[in-house]
C-alpha cells in the first residue's frame, strides 16, 4: 500500500529545466516514477528527459491529468509556484526548495489544506514509496521495498539510516522527509498518523533533531499506536542554537533538547538509538 505516493501517482516537476530539476527528473524516472510533466514559465513546448514542459501547472494538469507536483523552484518564487500547483488541483505537493521565508509558508500551508492539497516540506528530501515511486531527491539505490516506515526532519542523515536499514536486510514502505523548517506542510505527528494506518508499514522509524517540540508530540502519539516505533535524535552535543528571547524559553518549557526528546520516546515505549546506524540493530533485535 504505502502512503501518499505510489506507482500510479502522476507527477509534475516544477522548475524542471533548472539544474536540480533536470538531474532529479532523471533519477525519479529511473526509479519508475510517473513524471508526466514539467513546468517552467516561458519554456512550454520543450522537453526534459522526454518529459513535456509546460508554461503553467494548469496547462500541465489539463494535458496530463497530473495529481502531484514536486517543486524545485528557487525560494523567492516558491510561494507563487506552490499556490499555482494548489490552484491547478494537485493533491500532493512536495516542496524541496530550501531557504523559503517561513512567513510564506504560513500562507501556503493553510491555503493548501483548505483546498485539499497535502504538502510535504519545504526544505526536505521529499518522499519515496520504496519500489513504487519517488517524489524527492534521495539516492535511489539505498531503498528497498519493505515494511519499515521512515519519518525524518533531515536529508543525508536519513540516507545514512535508510542505508543501514536496507543493509540489515529490512526494507521501507514509505520514507517521508518532512523537512526541517519552522513551518512545514505535514508535521511529524501527522506523518506518524499516516504510517500508523498504512497496512504495508509494520514498524516506524523516526529521525528527529533538537529544536521545536515535534518529537515530543510524536512520542505522545506513538504511545497510542500499535506498531513498534524506533527513534534517533541528532544534536545531543550541538551548540545551543539561536535563543529566541524569553519567548523561546516560554514556548519550549524545557522541551526541544535532545534529552527531552529521547526521554519522551522512551516514555512512550519506543526504542531510541544512540548512533544513527544503531536503528538497524534495534530493528533486528525487535
Amino acid at each position, binding site marked *: 500500500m504505502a502512503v501518499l505516493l505510489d506507482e500510479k501517482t502522476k507527477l509534475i516537476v516544477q522548475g524542471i529545466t533548472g539544474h536540480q530539476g533536470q*538531474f532529479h527528473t532523471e533519477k525519479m524516472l529511473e526509479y519508475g516514477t510517473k513524471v508526466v510533466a514539467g513546468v517552467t514559465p516561458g519554456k512550454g513546448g520543450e522537453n526534459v528527459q522526454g518529459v513535456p514542459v509546460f508554461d503553467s501547472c494548469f496547462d500541465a494538469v489539463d494535458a496530463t491529468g497530473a495529481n502531484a507536483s514536486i517543486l524545485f523552484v528557487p525560494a523567492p518564487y516558491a510561494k507563487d509556484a506552490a499556490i499555482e500547483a494548489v490552484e491547478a488541483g494537485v493533491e500532493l505537493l512536495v516542496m524541496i526548495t530550501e531557504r523559503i521565508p*517561513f512567513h510564506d509558508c*504560513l500562507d501556503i500551508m*493553510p491555503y493548501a489544506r483548505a483546498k485539499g492539497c497535502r504538502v510535504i516540506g519545504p526544505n526536505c528530501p521529499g518522499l519515496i514509496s520504496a519500489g513504487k515511486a519517488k517524489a524527492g531527491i534521495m539516492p535511489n539505490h539505498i531503498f528497498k521495498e519493505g515494511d519499515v516506515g521512515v519519518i525524518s526532519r533531515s536529508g543525508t542523515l536519513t*540516507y545514512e539510516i535508510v542505508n543501514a536499514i536496507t543493509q540489515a536486510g529490512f526494507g521501507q514502505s514509505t520514507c517521508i522527509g518532512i523537512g526541517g523548517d519552522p513551518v512545514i506542510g505535514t*508535521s511529524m505527528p501527522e506523518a506518524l498518523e499516516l504510517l500508523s494506518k498504512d497496512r504495508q508499514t509494520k514498524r516506524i522509524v523516526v529521525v528527529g*533533531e533538537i529544536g521545536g517540540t515535534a518529537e515530543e508530540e510524536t512520542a505522545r502519539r506513538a504511545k497510542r499506536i500499535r506498531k513498534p516505533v524506533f527513534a534517533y535524535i*541528532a544534536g545531543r552535543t550541538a551548540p545551543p542554537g539561536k535563543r529566541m528571547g524569553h*519567548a523561546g524559553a516560554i*514556548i519550549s518549557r524545557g522541551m526541544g533538547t535532545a534529552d527531552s526528546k529521547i526521554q519522551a520516546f522512551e516514555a512512550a515505549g519506543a526504542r531510541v538509538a544512540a548512533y544513527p546506524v544503531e536503528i538497524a540493530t534495534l530493528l533486528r533485535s525487535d
Partner: protein
Amino acid sequence: MKFYEYKAHEIFRKYGIPVPRGVLAATPEDLVDPPLPCAVKAQVLVGGRGKAGGIKFAKTLEEAREAARAILGMTIGPYTVRQVYAQEMLDIAKELYLSITIDRSARAPLLIASATGGMEIESVPEKSLFRIHLPPLVGLQPYVLRALAKKLGLPKEGASRVSDIVRKAFALFEGEDAELVEINPLAVLKDGRVMAGDAKLIVDDNAEYRHPEYADLPQDRTPLEEEAHDKGITFIQLDGDIGVIANGAGLTMATLDVLNLKGGRGGTFLDLGGTDDPEKVKQAFEILLKAAPSVILLNIFGGITKADTVAQGVREALEEMHVNVPVIARIKGVNEDRAREILQGIGHPADSMEEAAELAVRAKAGGP
C-alpha cells in the same frame, strides 16, 4: 538576523510603536544632548548585559558620559562593547510582557503576554501567561485583543493602548519577516502611556533578500563565521579541536554526536549542504582550515552532493593551502569510489561514521 536594541527601536518607531527617546554613541563625546535622566546601555547581541554591568544610570550629561566611558570597550560574553544607547528613563507604573513568535506545532504566530513583565518573566508561573495564536491569512481579529485585555486585567484606556501596540507589533512581525518581536517590559507609565521599554527583534535569515536594508547589520558571529556567512557557507565555531565537515545539518549534528560518544570534541560545525560545486567545497574547506583544527573529520553521504566533487574540492584546498592535517574521510553514496581515489594519499578512509570518529580521535592522539 538579530538587531541591536537601538536598531530594533528604530524599526518599532517605523511601525508606530511608542519607544523611549534615545541617542546612540560610539564615544563618550558623542553624547551631546542625551535625554535626561537616562539609562546608558551597552549595545550587544547577547542577553545578561545588566548583570555584566552594561547598564548604568545618569542624571546629568557628565554622568552619562562617565557611564559611556565605563561601558564602551567592556567585554560582555564574547563581545566588546562598541556602542552605547542613552535612553530616556521611564516613569513606570507597571511592567507587562508581550511577544510574538512562531509556534511550529500550530504553524501559526503565537502571542504571549503576561501582566508581570520585566526581569521576572521567566519565573512567571505557566498559568499567569496568556498565549493565543494569531491566525495566519485572516489577520488579527478583535477577539484576540479582547481576550488579552481581560487576561492582563487592564482598565479600558490601557487596554486600548496595548491593543494598538499589539496590532502594530503584528504588522511589524508580518511586514519584516520577523521570527521574534519581544517587548519586555511593555511599560505602562504613570501618566498612562504605554511604551516598549525594551525591544528585541529577530528577522528570518531566509527573508534577507526581501530586506536588503538589513544585509549589512552586524551579527553575533566570529570573524571566521562572518567570512563563511558572506560566502554562503553554514559554519559555526565550537569549543573542540576536531574540524567536522559533513553534508546536511542533521548528518553534521549526528557526526558531532558520534565523535563525542567516541571521546572527541568537534571544533567546527560545517555543513556543506547540497552543493556539488568543487569551488564551493574548496571555499568551505579553506574556512575549516583557518579554524586550525588538529584533525579533520569529513563525513559525506552523497545524494545530491556527488562524493567525487567534494573530494576534488578537499584535495585542491589542502594542496593550495599547504596544510598538513590528518583528514579522516568517510564518504558514501554517489561516486564514492572515485572520491576515494581522489583522496588517495591525503585522507584516511573510513567505512562508517563510528569508525571515522574513532580514527579522528586516535589521529589527534598521535595515531592512527
